[in-house]
């Protein structure tokens, strides 16, 4: 069964004398390597140069706040259910008096963790989220030395008020349209 | 020199046989080659051909005088007989070519040892002979005994080589040459003073040479090595190697240092007496036939050294030549039988293996009996004439007590030789299966027997040299 056209038929033929002394073969090989010396190196100097990334690139998650700065997440758990890698865990809690500024809903996630080593960056959490709370961004999850550092808590996931993260870059028009639909509860302003 | 070329060529041919796969016809070729070497040597002996083919530079190192040529004839004969006797040994041997090549190279070494006229050749000859022997002693690779024999032989042999070399160096230091004739001229000149260095050198040379000839008290290796090595190899050691060593020993004085045996006669006497007694007395307690023959060979060296001591006697060299010849042929015969019998009893060469041999194969028993009687010095076998000559020479020089000692020692010798004879004739063997031997073996046994009987009765060998 021929799968590609690049396969080569191998035959156990006896080598000729010239082949057996190997020198021409070696010479040929040397020339091949040498010829590569004159090719342009395709290296990209990373920190300085960056490759363009795909518009749909799915990188590190972010838990969005609403415009007032309250966390959108209501700890419904849909994202955790949707996660095929079971990377998301959370603990829900009732909003205390006086915290209305902090949490948009009456219920909130007192702890929200994503294990970045398990996460496969499929984006299903994003799709499952009814409150437009979790989004995947184009940021790269940085490497660290310890395993535990890859379990991202709210400290790393929730966006800082002074460094708002623009998630619109990856949002397709369809999605934007869909999310603008006010018939859904989450788009209602309180 | 011609023989050296022929045999060395044969050796290389043997190695080529492994590559080009003509191992089947190897044995006949080698036998033919050895026969040619023998014929050439005999022709050289008669002075008719081949004598002037090499120029003086060759002769500066090797001197094929009558002494050398005679010993070459003897050595070639021994080698030829050995190869014939051990024909079977090589037939079913997977390393046939290796073995044969080693043996042939060893023969070259032997030639060098009997014909050297420069110490370089003596040294090289000894080594060329020894190195194949070290290997062959261990050629039964899975046998611990063979390994041990090889290692012991090797260590002891190298040690002796070291001593030999130091002796040569000291000799050189006091004389200033390696050439035997120059040494002779210098040492026999009137103004030669024996310095301590010269003396020490001579003593070291003597020790090393007596080691190679396995004379007591430098004999420790011999019994172990003889009994541990494969029987064929042992027979080569006991005949060819010993002949070469003794010839080299004698040649040392014959060519280079004619006055030494007289001056150092006390050392010689110690060697002789120690060999005679240690060899004979320890042999009495042996139950392994090969070990027994090893000790007996030590005692024979004692006899041979008598001739070395008195080599200046008009019959000294003749007597030694005859002794060595008789001893070698006899030993070949004895070992041939020991080997055949040993094979029958799964490599066990105890004396009990010979029990009732006369019923199992009268020819073997007969040959061994004749050989042992000859070794014991019973007339009219060749061994008698050999010993007779030695006693004669000793008496000639007034060493009456030495003769008495030799006689007493050889009486002890009779005891252990007869132990085997008695075992053969009266012992009850564990198996009564007749031992089958091939026609070639029969013929060889007969030839050897005739040689043992005939050599003494015929003055040819004695007067050859």
């Amino acid at each position: 069964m021929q799968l590609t056209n690049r396969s080569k038929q191998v035959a156990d033929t006896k080598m000729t004398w010239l082949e057996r002394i190997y020198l021409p073969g070696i010479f040929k090989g040397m020339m091949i390597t040498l010829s590569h010396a004159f090719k342009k190196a395709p290296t990209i100097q990373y920190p300085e140069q960056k490759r363009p990334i795909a518009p749909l690139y799915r990188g590190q998650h972010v838990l969005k706040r609403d415009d007032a700065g309250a966390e959108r997440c209501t700890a419904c758990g849909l994202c955790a259910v949707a996660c095929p890698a079971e990377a998301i865990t959370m603990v829900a809690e009732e909003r205390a008096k006086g915290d209305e500024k902090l949490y948009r809903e009456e219920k909130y996630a007192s702890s929200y963790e994503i294990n970045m080593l398990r996460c496969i960056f499929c984006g299903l959490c994003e799709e499952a989220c009814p409150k437009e709370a979790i989004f995947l961004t184009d940021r790269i999850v940085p490497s660290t030395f310890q395993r535990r550092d890859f379990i991202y808590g709210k400290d790393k996931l929730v966006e800082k008020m002074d460094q708002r993260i623009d998630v619109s870059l990856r949002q397709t028009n369809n999605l934007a349209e869909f999310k603008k639909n006010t018939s859904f509860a989450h788009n209602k302003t309180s | 020199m011609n023989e050296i070329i022929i045999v060395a060529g044969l050796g290389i041919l043997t190695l080529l046989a492994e590559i080009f796969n003509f191992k089947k016809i190897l044995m006949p070729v080698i036998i033919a080659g050895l026969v040619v070497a023998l014929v050439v040597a005999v022709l050289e002996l008669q002075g008719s051909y081949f004598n002037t083919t090499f120029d003086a530079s060759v002769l500066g190192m090797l001197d094929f005088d009558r002494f050398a040529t005679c010993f070459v004839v003897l050595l070639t004969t021994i080698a030829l007989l050995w190869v014939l006797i051990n024909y079977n040994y090589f037939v079913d041997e997977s390393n046939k070519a290796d073995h044969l090549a080693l043996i042939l190279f060893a023969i070259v070494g032997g030639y060098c040892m009997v014909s050297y006229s420069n110490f370089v050749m003596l040294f090289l000859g000894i080594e060329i002979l020894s190195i194949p022997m070290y290997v062959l002693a261990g050629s039964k690779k899975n046998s611990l005994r063979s390994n041990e024999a090889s290692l012991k032989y090797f260590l002891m042999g190298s040690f002796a080589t070291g001593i030999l070399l130091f002796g040569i160096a000291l000799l050189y230091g006091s004389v200033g040459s390696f050439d035997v004739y120059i040494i002779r001229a210098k040492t026999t000149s009137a103004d030669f003073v024996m310095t301590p260095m010269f003396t020490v050198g001579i003593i070291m040379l003597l020790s090393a040479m007596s080691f190679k000839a396995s004379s007591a008290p430098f004999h420790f290796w011999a019994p172990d090595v003889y009994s541990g090595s494969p029987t064929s190899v042992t027979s080569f050691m006991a005949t060819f190697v010993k002949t070469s060593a003794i010839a080299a020993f004698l040649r040392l004085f014959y060519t280079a240092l004619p006055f030494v045996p007289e001056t150092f006669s006390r050392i010689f006497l110690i060697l002789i007496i120690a060999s005679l007694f240690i060899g004979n007395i320890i042999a009495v307690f042996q139950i392994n036939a090969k070990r027994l023959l090893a000790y007996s060979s030590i005692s024979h060296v004692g006899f041979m050294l008598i001739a070395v001591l008195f080599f200046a006697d008009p019959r000294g060299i003749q007597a030694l030549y005859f002794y060595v010849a008789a001893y070698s042929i006899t030993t070949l015969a004895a070992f041939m039988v020991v080997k055949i019998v040993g094979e029958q009893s799964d490599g066990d060469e105890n004396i009990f293996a010979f029990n009732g041999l006369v019923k199992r194969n009268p020819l073997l028993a007969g040959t061994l009996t004749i050989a042992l009687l000859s070794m014991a010095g019973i007339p009219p076998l060749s061994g008698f004439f050999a010993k007779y000559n030695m006693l004669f020479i000793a008496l000639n020089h007034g060493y009456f007590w030495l003769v008495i000692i030799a006689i007493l020692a050889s009486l002890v010798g009779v005891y252990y030789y007869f132990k085997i004879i008695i075992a053969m004739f009266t012992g009850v063997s564990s198996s009564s299966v007749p031992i089958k031997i091939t026609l070639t073996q029969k013929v060889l046994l007969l030839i050897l027997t005739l040689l043992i009987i005939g050599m003494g009765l015929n003055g040819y060998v004695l007067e050859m040299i």
Partner: protein
Amino acid sequence: MFPIILLLLPVVSALVLLALPSSISKKVAMGGSILSLFAVLFTLNTLRIDAASANLVFNKIWLSSLGSNLSFSIDGITMVLLLLTNILLPLIILSTFNREINKPKAYFTMMLLMQSALLGVFMATDGLVFYIFWELALIPIYFICLFWGGEGRQRITFKFFIYTLLGSLFMLVALIILYQHTLNHSFAINDLYAAGKSMTMEQQAWVFWFFFLAFAIKMPVFPFHTWQPDTYTNAPTQGTMLLSGIMLKMGTYGLIRWLLPMVPAAVSAYSNTVIILSVISVVYASCIAIVQTNFKRLIAYSSIAHVGLICAGIFSYKAEGIQGALVQMFAHGINVVGLFFVCDVIQRNAGTDTISNLGGIRTVNQRFAFWFLIIMLGSIALPLTNSFVGEFLLLNGIYQYNAWYAAIGGLSVILGAVYMLRSYQSMMLGNTSSNTLTFASLKKSETLFFSVIVIIIMVCGVYPKLILDIAALDVLKMIVH
């Protein structure tokens, strides 16, 4: 020519014997030995006609570098022993008829080779050749004893071998010493004689004692006899016969031919010692023979006694002594072979040779007792038997040397009579024992054997000149020389 023919005849018959099937070995051996006998008789004839005949001498260049030639010659003294050997050998072979012999081929070959070697010893006139045959004679008898001997033979035969070898090795040294003193470096007997005479007293003494050691062990003379009784008892009958009948004479012959003329000074100096030894040997052996319980051992000891007397006679160095020795050697050979055959017959029929277990054989087998009687009387030197002449002459010779020695030596006759008659009495007379009841009658060959022996005993006893004449001239020559 004769010597070599005599030497080779047994060898040839041995070869023929080897080639033929073993069932007829006995007959072939017999034929061969009889042929030898005829040859020796023919030689005797030649000797009588012309003692200087060239045919009696054989000389061939051999090991010239060793100074040795193959030289043999036959004179009267030799002739006696040749005769003895060649007469005894057919008899010894005859004694095997009606006996089962294991491996007959080898057995008879050994015997014939032995015969050849013995003849060589007697005829050799070259030192080295003599020595070689001397040793060569040892080999066949050793193997005969070793292979066909009785219980414990390994040790006993070995002792025998070592003893004799020791002696002969010393003889070799003596020969070499003599050889070195010869003028023209030769082993020829006359050169050796000359050399021996030219040597100093001390050298002669060494040579003398070395030779004597070899001969004394072979004969044997006290105190070198310890190998002998055991070996005689242990060897097969034929071996014993060879040993006692012929081999023993090698020693005495050696004394006459090789020792006495070789070193006269030493002989005259030491003959006294030797004769004393011999006389001791006579008395000692006789006394021991008296207390023997085994008949074979008894004969062995008697043999020592007889030989002792012969030795003493020889060393008296008188014509009578030497003549007597020769006659007695012949006579003893015949008698002792007869006695051993008697012993063999008894052993075969009664199954034992212990004297006390036997008795009354005469009542069972009268003819056997008769044969035994005559042989026994011959052995104790009754007048009209062959030994009488010998012993008489011997004692005469010794008497001329020293009367006391003769007197003590003469005891041997009396003591001999004592032990022989006593043993005859207890074996042949008296009551039959369980062992002797079934004593079978003699076979034809046995009768033949005994009759030949008895005839020789009688003839030589009655007409000793037969033997005396052969050697008389040569003995005189030797004494005068």
